[in-house]
């Protein structure tokens, strides 16, 4: 078990590749060695067939022809009844049967000797009959017997040689057939191993490479999704893929974590999700800060409250999406005007925006408010304004307090009151409220109509 675990821990794609190469090389070397050895064996067999066994068969064949010839010589000597022919044939039979001794074949030599003796006997009997004629019929019977014995010996040799040659030829052909079938078997084995190996390799590749990669890709695709509670992936065996899978899992975890953190941060941050200007929370903080800093610098804090006119109507008639577009456009415009001024804009309520102007007196605040009012009224809000005659306007309430003596709440209340006045005055207008009863001498603000 520990070994198996060790292997599983250590096995990598590169390692598997190396193992494969080593196996392939070992196999190739083994096949070459086996083939060379076996083919050499076959070659030796073929050489022995060519150099020994076929000559042996040919020798048998040649001797079979000689025996056949011997048979016809025996017939000739029996039928000749002519001294000269009998002598010639006898000489030929002698020479022929003697030549069997060249092949060192005892059976053949013995048979040959016997035939030569019978032929000699026939010739002697015929010669005797010619020199001293006796009972012709009886002589003929004796000669006939010698002839039959000789022919029997010829027949015996002939069968022996034919059978021997046939057996030898059969041996050779069986050996050749055996060698051929062994060659076929070995080649089938040699070819089958790579074929099966390829199948196995394909299966391993499918199971341990393709499947993990596909799984990882699927897993990657779910990373963006909200719900990625799929079953956890099986760990791939191969090291590299395991690393990738783990990285993907870790990345998915991280991604989900990030999204959760992001949501939390959004809340924590001071940004309004819709308009991307400050939210109410950041507004409160900024106003507190403005008062704190203004008090130290003996300065003022001014505040504008802007309320889009008839916004409920826009929502009702054109829908909330158009309403959202209007809010974003207005917020962006106000923010644009505040850039570089140190003024801070925030979304104060549904369609209400607030601008904190640290250090600005009432006059400057009114002036800035007027600029914003004009700017808003000139805003092209998508193409809705042109088509439906929709026109955005805003009413603005302005207030200003001495930071040292005033409070954020008092400032907001004053600005709110001014906004209320502006709404009552017919909208699309700036109204301000002076709220400094304690120090009238220092009052510099004036109504901006």
């Amino acid at each position: 078990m520990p070994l198996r675990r060790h292997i599983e821990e250590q096995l990598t794609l590169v390692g598997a590749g190396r193992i494969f190469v080593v196996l392939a090389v070992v196999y190739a070397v083994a096949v070459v060695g086996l083939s060379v050895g076996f083919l050499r064996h076959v070659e030796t067999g073929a050489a022995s067939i060519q150099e020994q066994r076929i000559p042996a068969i040919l020798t048998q064949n040649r001797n079979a022809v000689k025996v056949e010839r011997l048979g016809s010589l025996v017939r000739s000597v029996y039928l000749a009844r002519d001294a000269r022919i009998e002598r010639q044939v006898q000489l030929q039979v002698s020479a022929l049967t003697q030549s069997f001794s060249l092949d060192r074949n005892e059976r053949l030599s013995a048979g040959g000797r016997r035939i030569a003796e019978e032929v000699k006997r026939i010739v002697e009997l015929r010669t005797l009959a010619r020199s001293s004629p006796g009972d012709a019929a009886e002589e003929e019977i004796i000669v006939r017997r010698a002839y039959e014995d000789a022919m029997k010996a010829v027949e015996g040799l002939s069968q022996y040689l034919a059978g021997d040659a046939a057996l030898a030829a059969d041996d050779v052909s069986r050996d050749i057939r055996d060698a051929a079938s062994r060659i076929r078997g070995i080649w089938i084995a040699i070819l089958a191993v790579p074929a099966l190996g390829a199948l196995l390799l394909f299966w391993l590749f499918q199971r341990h490479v393709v499947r993990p990669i596909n799984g990882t890709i699927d897993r990657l695709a779910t990373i963006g999704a909200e719900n990625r509670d799929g079953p956890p992936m099986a760990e791939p065996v191969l090291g590299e893929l395991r690393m990738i899978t783990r990285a993907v899992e870790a990345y998915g975890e991280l991604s989900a974590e990030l999204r959760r953190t992001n949501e939390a941060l959004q809340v924590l941050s001071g940004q309004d999700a819709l308009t991307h200007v400050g939210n109410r929370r950041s507004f409160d903080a900024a106003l507190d800060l403005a008062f704190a800093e203004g008090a130290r610098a003996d300065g003022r804090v001014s505040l504008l409250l802007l309320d889009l006119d008839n916004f409920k109507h826009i929502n009702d008639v054109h829908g909330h999406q158009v309403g959202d577009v209007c809010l974003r456009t207005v917020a962006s415009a106000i923010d644009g005007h505040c850039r570089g001024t140190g003024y801070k804009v925030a979304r104060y309520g549904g369609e209400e925006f607030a601008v904190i102007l640290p250090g600005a007196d009432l006059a400057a605040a009114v002036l800035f408010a007027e600029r914003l009012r004009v700017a808003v009224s000139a805003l092209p809000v998508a193409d809705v304004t042109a088509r439906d005659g929709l026109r955005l306007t805003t009413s603005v309430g302005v207030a200003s307090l001495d930071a040292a003596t005033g409070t954020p709440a008092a400032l907001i209340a004053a600005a709110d009151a001014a906004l209320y006045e502006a709404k009552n005055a017919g909208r699309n207008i700036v109204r301000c409220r002076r709220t400094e009863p304690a120090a009238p001498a220092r009052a510099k603000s004036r109504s901006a109509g």
Partner: protein
Amino acid sequence: MWLSRRFGFTLLLLAAGLAPATAGAETLRVATEGAYPPFNYVAEDGSLAGFDVDIAKAICAEMKVVCSYRAVAWDGIIDGLVAGDYDLVVASMAHTPERAARVAFSDFYYRSHSVFIGDASQILGTSPENLAGRRIGVATETIQADYLKRTFPGLTIVEAPDSIVILKMLEAGEVDVVLGDAIQLLSWMEAAEHARFEYIGDPVGDAFLQSSARIAARKDAGDLVARVNEAIRHIRLDGTYDRINDAYFPFSIY
């Protein structure tokens, strides 16, 4: 005009260069004894004939070479080959270690055994006792001569320069028996005038005399012997050998 003349000249040069390769087919000089019927002998018209000569012609044809033939006395036939007077000896020459030390031998082209012949009524056997007091004839420088000198040192051995001479001596009663090649003696004995002569005893069992006739070439003749072997193999397989064999002998002598 100039160009074509030049071209013609080039062709001429080329032809001159190719000429030896095409026109000059290889020629070989073949020597035989001419006194060993029916293997080799001088025919009535003066030309060389016999089994050896026909085999030599078949082999030359098989090798696609042009051969010339000449008769050379047996006792100098190897010297002449070594000296380069001719290229091949096709003369029923048996393989012996002494000869193989001087020349290169081909595969055998026929095999034979040796046997004594003589007047069967006079000579009863081939044992030393039977042969004691007899004059034994043999052709000089042959394996049979070597055998006799080794095996019967006490007997009277008469050597003649070739087989024709020794057989004439046998006919004339100058020798009593002759030891020779069974096939060669067969042809001689088949003649009616030699009817009183018979094979005496069994063929000589000595392995030394169960010999094989081979073609000899110089040792430095390159692949000539290999080509001769290939030619022998071919004429054996295509029936040429058998046709020649049947023209001379009643059975195969291969």
